[in-house]
């Protein structure tokens, strides 16, 4: 099967193509140098062509998402679309059904999406849902930050055991990378408490969040995992939390990357660049975070942009969600995952005229606009925490148009003028910057830039064509056109197959699930497993044999190999 895309205005940051008319040749699902004259042809007619979108942080599958669905039937009733000959029914806005997840991403030109948090014990549920999400490639990051074995091995300072545990945990959960959420806090929430900073000692384990983060970063690089440690900081969502965020980013300096990528990805910064001491004097500190990023090479972030309207917050940060539920007086889902973390789900409504929400809206944008290198700030909404992913085109338009931002600011609470810098920021991103923040950057952060997020030979043939001509549009003025084009791709091509045409789903192939098989010396696994077996015997409610995700749960796997390599740890 051959396909040729002609006359596209191509943005391919990895290969240095910035809007040049370039032909793209596709054969057997991959991008190749050239195709035969038998190839079918798509004439892009000067329209915008980018690699398929890559989302490195979204909540698309698993226990939390489903708790959101269960507690929000009113959300399920929005966004209904009946089945067609090709598609199954769509439901929901903040917590869509599995089908709508895949279709809506594909309709925006996205082809790869990573679920940002699964507990090992809940991983079967995650994969059951991933197996039903059509079209896109996907994977899930596995939670390690409050797991008892993690904290035991950190206390023992036994990095070999910790590496063996991480490798085994990724296998057990068919996970792609190491997610750390409020390290230590998930354990303390079991006792109704939380950690307040990097140096609080977690009772019964005698370790600090600092120890946990640094040890997991070291082990992540020992194992040479494709992705770095992916951190949701301590104190997230509290006024003044930017100090903890900066201190956590600082830790990255202690470890050297094993690959051409960051050693620490700090996520959803809208919730982590908060100044002030309470919600009354709350202010944006995005400029301080951006300043750090501008002077550091080993940390990346994503926006977690706030979108006005309905959202469903969901995180393994149980104590944060208890605080949120107390603020909203509304619904609250609270979860405990035995030896592995906590969780919470709280619906939110972000109203424009509320000062806190106006400031949070500004934080994500400030971060993206004040950080010079777009590779360091990925475009996300931390779906559905900041808002649903279907709003990415809105975020793109905001980043590309100061005019649009100023129009928005007029509708917001006046605090946006006094407690953020957004009104005075004139920078407007271009299509190349956007292609980095939504494609090349996310693929690089995930460690998948060989095959994802670019259009060079050897890449997966995941491509989006949008209905605008970059040389004939001024995004600053015509931001509505930009938004509408990114909302509804003219073509989305996934693995060489046309899946979306004129914004409509035309084919629903099944995507692959990426997971990492990391090797460690057998003797390390043997020693580690002695401890694990004891944990199952004494504490877990289920048997070890019923814990592992079997192959039957991952029917289209894409296994990425990794394993212990020697790295210098400074």
């Amino acid at each position: 099967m051959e396909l040729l895309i002609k006359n596209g205005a191509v943005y391919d940051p990895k290969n240095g193509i910035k809007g040049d008319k370039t032909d793209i040749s596709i054969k057997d699902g991959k991008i190749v140098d050239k195709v035969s004259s038998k190839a079918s042809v798509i004439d892009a007619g000067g329209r915008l062509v980018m690699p398929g979108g890559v989302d490195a942080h979204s909540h698309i599958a698993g226990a939390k998402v489903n708790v959101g669905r269960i507690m929000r039937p009113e959300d399920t009733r929005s966004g209904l679309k009946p089945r067609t000959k090709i598609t199954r029914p769509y439901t929901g806005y903040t917590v869509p059904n599995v089908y709508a997840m895949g279709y809506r991403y594909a309709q925006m030109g996205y082809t790869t999406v990573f679920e940002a948090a699964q507990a090992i014990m809940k991983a079967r549920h995650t994969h059951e849902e991933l197996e039903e999400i059509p079209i896109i490639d996907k994977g899930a990051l596995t939670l390690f930050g409050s797991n008892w074995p993690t904290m035991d091995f950190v206390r023992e300072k036994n990095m070999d055991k910790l590496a063996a545990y991480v490798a085994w945990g990724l296998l057990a959960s068919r996970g792609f990378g190491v997610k750390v959420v409020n390290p230590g806090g998930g354990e303390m929430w079991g006792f109704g408490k939380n950690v307040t900073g990097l140096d609080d000692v977690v009772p019964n384990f005698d370790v600090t969040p600092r120890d946990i983060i640094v040890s997991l970063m070291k082990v992540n690089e020992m194992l040479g995992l494709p992705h770095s440690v992916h951190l949701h900081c301590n104190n997230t969502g509290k006024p003044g939390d930017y100090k903890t965020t900066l201190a956590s980013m600082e830790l990255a300096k202690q470890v050297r990357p094993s690959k051409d990528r960051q050693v620490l990805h700090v996520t959803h910064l809208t919730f982590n660049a908060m100044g002030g001491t309470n919600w009354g004097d709350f202010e944006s500190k995005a400029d301080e975070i951006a300043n750090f990023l501008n002077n550091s090479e080993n940390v990346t972030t994503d926006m977690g942009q706030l979108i006005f309207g309905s959202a469903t917050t969901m995180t393994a940060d149980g104590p944060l969600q208890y605080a949120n539920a107390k603020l909203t007086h509304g619904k609250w889902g609270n979860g405990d995952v035995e030896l592995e973390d906590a969780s919470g789900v709280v619906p939110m409504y972000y109203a424009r005229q509320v000062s806190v929400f106006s400031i949070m809206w500004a934080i994500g944008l400030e971060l993206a606009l004040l950080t010079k290198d777009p590779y360091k700030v990925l475009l996300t909404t931390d779906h559905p925490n900041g808002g649903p992913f279907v709003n990415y085109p809105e975020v793109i338009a905001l980043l590309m148009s100061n005019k649009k931002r100023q129009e928005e600011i007029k509708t917001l609470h006046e605090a946006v003028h006094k407690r953020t810098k957004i009104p005075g920021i004139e920078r407007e991103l271009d299509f190349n910057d956007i292609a980095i923040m939504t494609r090349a950057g996310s693929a690089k952060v995930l460690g998948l830039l060989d095959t994802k997020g670019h259009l060079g030979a050897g890449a997966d043939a995941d491509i989006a064509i949008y209905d605008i001509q970059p040389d004939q549009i001024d995004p600053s003025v015509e931001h509505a056109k930009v938004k509408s084009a990114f909302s509804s791709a003219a073509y989305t091509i996934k693995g060489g197959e046309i899946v979306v045409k004129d914004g409509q789903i035309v084919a629903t192939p099944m995507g692959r699930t990426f997971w990492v098989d990391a090797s460690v010396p057998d003797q390390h696994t043997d020693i580690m497993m002695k401890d694990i077996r004891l944990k199952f015997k004494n504490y877990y409610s289920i048997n070890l044999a019923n814990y592992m995700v079997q192959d039957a749960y991952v029917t289209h796997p894409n296994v990425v190999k990794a394993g212990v390599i020697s790295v210098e740890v400074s």
Partner: protein
Amino acid sequence: MQTVTLKPKKEIKISVEAENISPDKFAGKTEKDIQSIEIWMGNRRTTIGELFSVKVEGSAPAADTKLVLEGDFSRVKRIGEGMSGGLMIIKGNVDMHVGAKMSGGKITVTGNADSWAGREMKGGELIIEGNAGYYLGAGYRGETCGMRGGKIMVMGNALDFVGEHMCGGEILVKGNAGILPGLSNNGGKIVIEGNTSRPGSEMAKGTIIVNGTVDEMMPVFKLEGTEAVEGVAYRKYTGDVIISGKGVLYVK
């Protein structure tokens, strides 16, 4: 003035989702236009013309449009959903969700209305001359607000959970109401002329007046003494104390 008369062509046995039957959807349209409006019967997509005979007199905007529904509409749901103005007379019984989310205009049901009548209503008037089912003026599953505005009057009885999650507006039940009227209320006013049981649990705001007998009180209200409302003496309670609620409950 525009008048549209609908009659079922034959007995409707499978339930019909009729959110497209409202003055807003019919205003200014011809018989042919209205006949071609989409409607779902069970899992089958069909048209108004397939199921109903349509007669149109005159042409007018929604506010001056009157719908007359004759015959058996007891398996037709969501009639008048979201309507913003105009008049609707349903001669007989009607299925669930009549007048859901309506923001203006007036609906009169001469028979009984099934559950969820006037749910999440924002304005306008809904009059049910017979009885109402469960969750009159309430919020549908998951909603944090039921009725927010407007007025509902039931001449007969209503079943359980009248005005659950109500945030505003007024409900008057002339007969009896089932258990837990005003459950989780956050505003608005409910008047029950007849009897009921366990009114106002989890009530944060709003007012409930019961003129008949309260079979059982939930032990979550604080007795504030006696107070006269429009010349009638009531025992006045506030609560729900468990959630520091500021709801007011008047019981004879």
